[in-house]
């Protein structure tokens, strides 16, 4: 059999579904956790094969192109590492009795469903399918956020659900508007929702309708991205759910939502008469950045702290895409990738830290580098990375964003730089307290695998120093597409 005939796309979508069904049925958490890891690995490997395989022509529903292929790989990669982390994390939760085996089964099934939803959203060639997939992913995470059934968790899930639903509705309205814009040109029926067709004909669409559609899409999917006035669900959902879910939320789901926004931004970019969506994204980006930066200061829950940091970074990324141009788009793409890897790594560390210390309160966590050097330094490196210090990857992207912005419009660079600095101050302040000083709490060794944590950090570090040329070429290509 020709190895190039490996059905990668069906595998990427099918494996999670199959695994989800299987795990919903099977008892025993050890087994399901392993299946979870295996399924994630298989999905990841299938995704990797996308690089090697000849790509199929874009279908009506599924598409693999330059824009999404790396996102798919990233998605499945982080999905895989998180599943490894999750296995050790969940074992501890079971021991402490926060979760029962039944819920665990549910948790694993939902995990794979979530992976399916995100993969589908990334690969969808139909804006309707994309919408459905993102909603599916959202709903599964809602359920997982509420899985601890504490009042706080329920409240967080409720909040997430309500705000998410409104987002769903707005995004749908935007999708309908896009169809409306496409319909006179492409004609009625399914083709008017097929992404590739839309892009090809975007130049002839009614620009005004497209503009309006974009506003709704930006608000709809922007809610999922966690942009500032729409962000409210994000910190609580991160803080109250299981930590692997926080990692996936921050590392992947936000990216997927932003990916959707980018797709539509490309449509607008392809239409010469449409408004440049840049200013809107810049505005929301800066708002998110500034807002999150100041919110970081009063945080005393470690997971909420990093959730706000995710908002901050989503702000930076949105800002970069809003600036547009090959350099800023490149930086935005790079930042997205690096942020996923870094933030999930941080949540891996945070998960173990909260388990070891038995608290999520920042004030009660001290001297980690002394009591748990590997975790502590992992956290330090993670925070340093997320703060945009070299030699880690985010430095490169922030370098590009800031320099290119300042050269083009100095006035916009000022709030950007201020926001970055303010956020850095808050993170460093908290890090200082947590990682250094006289240790507090348990000094028991960690019974956890720190491999995913350091694997991510190593990737980020390597990317900060050296990016393989094909990857760079790909980023550049996509950056040009994004206009």
């Amino acid at each position, binding site marked *: 059999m020709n190895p190039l005939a490996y059905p990668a796309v069906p595998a990427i979508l099918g494996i999670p579904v199959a695994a989800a069904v299987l795990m919903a049925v099977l008892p025993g958490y050890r087994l399901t956790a392993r299946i979870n890891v295996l399924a994630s690995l298989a999905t990841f490997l299938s995704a990797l094969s996308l690089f090697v395989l000849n790509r199929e022509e874009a279908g009506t529903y599924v598409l693999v192109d330059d824009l999404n292929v790396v996102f798919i790989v990233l998605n499945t990669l982080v999905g895989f590492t998180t599943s490894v982390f999750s296995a050790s994390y969940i074992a501890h939760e079971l021991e402490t009795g926060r979760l029962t085996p039944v819920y665990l089964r549910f948790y694993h099934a939902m995990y794979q469903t979530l992976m399916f939803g995100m993969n589908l959203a990334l690969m969808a060639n139909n804006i309707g399918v994309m919408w459905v997939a993102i909603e599916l992913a959202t709903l599964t995470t809602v359920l997982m956020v509420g899985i601890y059934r504490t009042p706080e968790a329920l409240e967080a899930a409720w909040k997430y659900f309500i705000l998410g639903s409104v987002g769903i509705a707005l995004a749908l309205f935007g999708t309908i508007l896009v169809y409306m814009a496409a319909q006179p040109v492409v004609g009625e029926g399914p083709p008017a929702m097929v992404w590739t067709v839309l892009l090809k004909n975007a130049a002839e669409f009614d620009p005004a309708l497209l503009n309006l559609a974009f506003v709704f899409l930006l608000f709809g999917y922007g809610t999922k991205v966690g942009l500032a006035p*729409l962000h409210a669900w994000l910190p609580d959902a991160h803080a109250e759910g299981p930590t692997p879910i926080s990692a996936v939320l921050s590392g992947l789901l936000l990216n997927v939502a932003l990916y959707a926004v980018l797709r539509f931004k490309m449509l607008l970019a392809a239409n010469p008469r449409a408004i440049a969506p840049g200013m*809107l994204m810049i505005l929301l980006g800066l708002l998110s950045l500034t807002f999150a930066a100041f*919110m970081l200061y*009063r945080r005393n829950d470690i997971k909420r702290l990093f959730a706000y940091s995710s908002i901050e970074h989503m702000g930076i990324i949105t800002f970069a895409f809003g600036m547009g141009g090959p350099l800023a788009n490149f930086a935005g793409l790079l930042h997205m990738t690096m942020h996923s890897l870094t933030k999930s790594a941080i949540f891996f560390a945070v998960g173990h830290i909260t388990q070891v210390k038995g608290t999520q309160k920042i004030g009660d966590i001290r001297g980690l580098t002394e009591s748990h050097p590997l975790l502590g330094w992992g956290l330090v490196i993670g925070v340093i990375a997320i703060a945009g210090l070299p030699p880690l990857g985010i*430095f490169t992207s922030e370098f590009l964003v800031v320099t290119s912005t300042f050269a083009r419009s100095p006035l916009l660079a000022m709030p950007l*730089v201020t926001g970055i600095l303010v956020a850095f101050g808050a993170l460093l302040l908290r890090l200082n307290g947590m990682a250094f000083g006289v240790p507090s709490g348990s000094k028991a060794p960690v019974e956890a695998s720190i491999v995913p944590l350091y694997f991510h950090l190593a990737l980020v570090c390597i990317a900060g120093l050296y990016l393989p040329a094909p990857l760079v070429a790909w980023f550049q290509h996509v950056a040009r597409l994004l206009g």
Partner: protein
Amino acid sequence: MTPVDIGLGSVVLLLALVPVGIVGGRRAAATPLLYTAAALISLLALANALGALLQAGEPSVIVLPLGLPWLGGHFRLDAVSAFFLAVINLGGVAASIYALGYGRHEQAPHRVLPFYPAFLAAMNLVLMADDAFAFLLCWELMSLASWGLVMAHHHHHDNARAGFIYLMMASFGTLSLLLAFGLMAGAEGDYAFAAIRAAGHSPGVAALALGLALLGTGSKAGLVPVHVWLPLAHPAAPSHVSALMSGVMTKVAVYGFVRIVFDLLGTTTWWGAMVVLALGGVTAVMGVLYALVQNDLKRLLAYSSVENVGIIFIGLGLALAFRTNAMPWAAALALTAAMLHVFNHSLFKSLLFFGAGAVLTATGRRDMEELGGLIHRMPKTSFAFLVGSVAISALPPLNGFVSEWMTFQAVLLSPSLPQWGLKVLIPAVGCLLALAAALAAACFVRAFGIAFLGRPRSQAAAEAAEVDGFSLAAMFGLALLCLLAGILPGLVIDSLAPVATILVHDRMPEQLGIPWLSIVPIAASRSSYNGLLVFLFIIMSSSLAAFVIHRLASKAVRRGPAWDCGTPDADPATQYSAGGFSQPLRRVFGTFVFLARERVHMPQPGDARPAVFHVRLLDPVWSAVYGRLGRAVDLTAGRFNKFQTLTIRGYLSLVFLSLVTLLTGLAIWL
């Protein structure tokens, strides 16, 4: 193998020591092993740098596949880099040798050893970087590595705070530099230094870039008002690292400024030079005034670094002023003076920090109020520290004087400048420089006099013992260099010629050919100085006097109790204290510089309570800028924090309102 290859090779070797430090950090054998290796590698890099500087051939270039394909990975070694590399690695060699002894007393070697070689490597890298990305990457790496070292003794709350402020300011500086580079590279910028150099910059861009570069590099060098982290962070690190941070890392910052402003920026305006000059002058005086009122020996030294950075920046500002006005020979003088001071300061500041470290090792104290009388217990350390003190006080015949003298010579050229602003400002800055020099002498009389002379003020000081041979070797090596650089400055000046040629397109006249090894910056009739002869004269006339008197008059000595106007008191508390010593100066300058307030509580006669004397000193920069900034951030954070506790309905209203606003906007705009 070109010099840059060897330079990068030594960096790789240093980086290879990092894993050794991580793995073997807690083992006793790791400390000597690592420091020996670091010393040897630094020596190699030093030799390489000196070779490159003296040969003064074409710059060697290498492009590594780092960063992004069009960004990063350029490294280059020209004379400017070579000079600074020499300074850095000289400091590295000295610090490593010193640490062979000092490092044995380290309580947390696993927190020092991994960062130390990384710090050295990063500083080397900054100097060789040849594009904005590589430069900033290495720059931040340097900050991070030194931050790790500052945080080595993290149990002290003060150190943690110092680390926080340090890294904040470092990030601030990096962001400023980021903006500067962004500005210089342009919108679709090419970040390679070669491209930036080639691109012409409009005056506005150049002025803005100059300001940003000043902020960015100044915040690392310790320029007022972005100096606040320095006196906190430098003393917090282990002493050999303090020496590196103060003596060497500030020079990397100077390099950054020089590279950006003189090399990359090309043209600058004359009022840009005024800003540099004014900041330099203020920094010099403020720094030394702060130093004068410190009781912590290491913090005093750190503040003194601020002062010296100010002096260097005065030199650079002068060079900038002259260069703008097409007076390259004068610019060469000013720049060479600044570079010479860079070199000199790295020598004596490292030496002094080593001395302070030795005192710390021997007594466990940094507070001068608990020291005293160490000249008896630690004669060798005391001697070395004395040499450093004389040198830093800019007294002939040691090296500190030479560079300040040359700076003064450059100041005296100001009448030839066409701009009135500069004409008036430069003598005023000269006055500040003179004031700083005088105050520095006062400061080091106090430092040496209180810590080493007199009688011990604590048990620990009374029982101090001389430190080990490695530490002494490092100190005496540097002391010797201070003397040599002081009496043979022509050597250093001549080797600085290629640096000046690159930066201001002219050089100082050749000095080595001048009889008696004098230095003549411009013309013999104008000014000249001969450190060697001054040294010889002083040595000869004092020995002659001593000899004649001992021979012809008397040499009898009798030891007796101190006279003290007939009322000697055995209590060491009757000596002048560090606080008391600086009281007159504090009174003179303190009331407006530090907003100093003294409060004396004197009990009534018959009341047995002790009298209480309380001095409150405020850093005006801190309270005026950073305190307010902190409060503003805190206040804003508090305001914003309300958004964390809205109801779901509240959040929905936010969504709703922003959507409606946007739609309204769209309706109006369409």
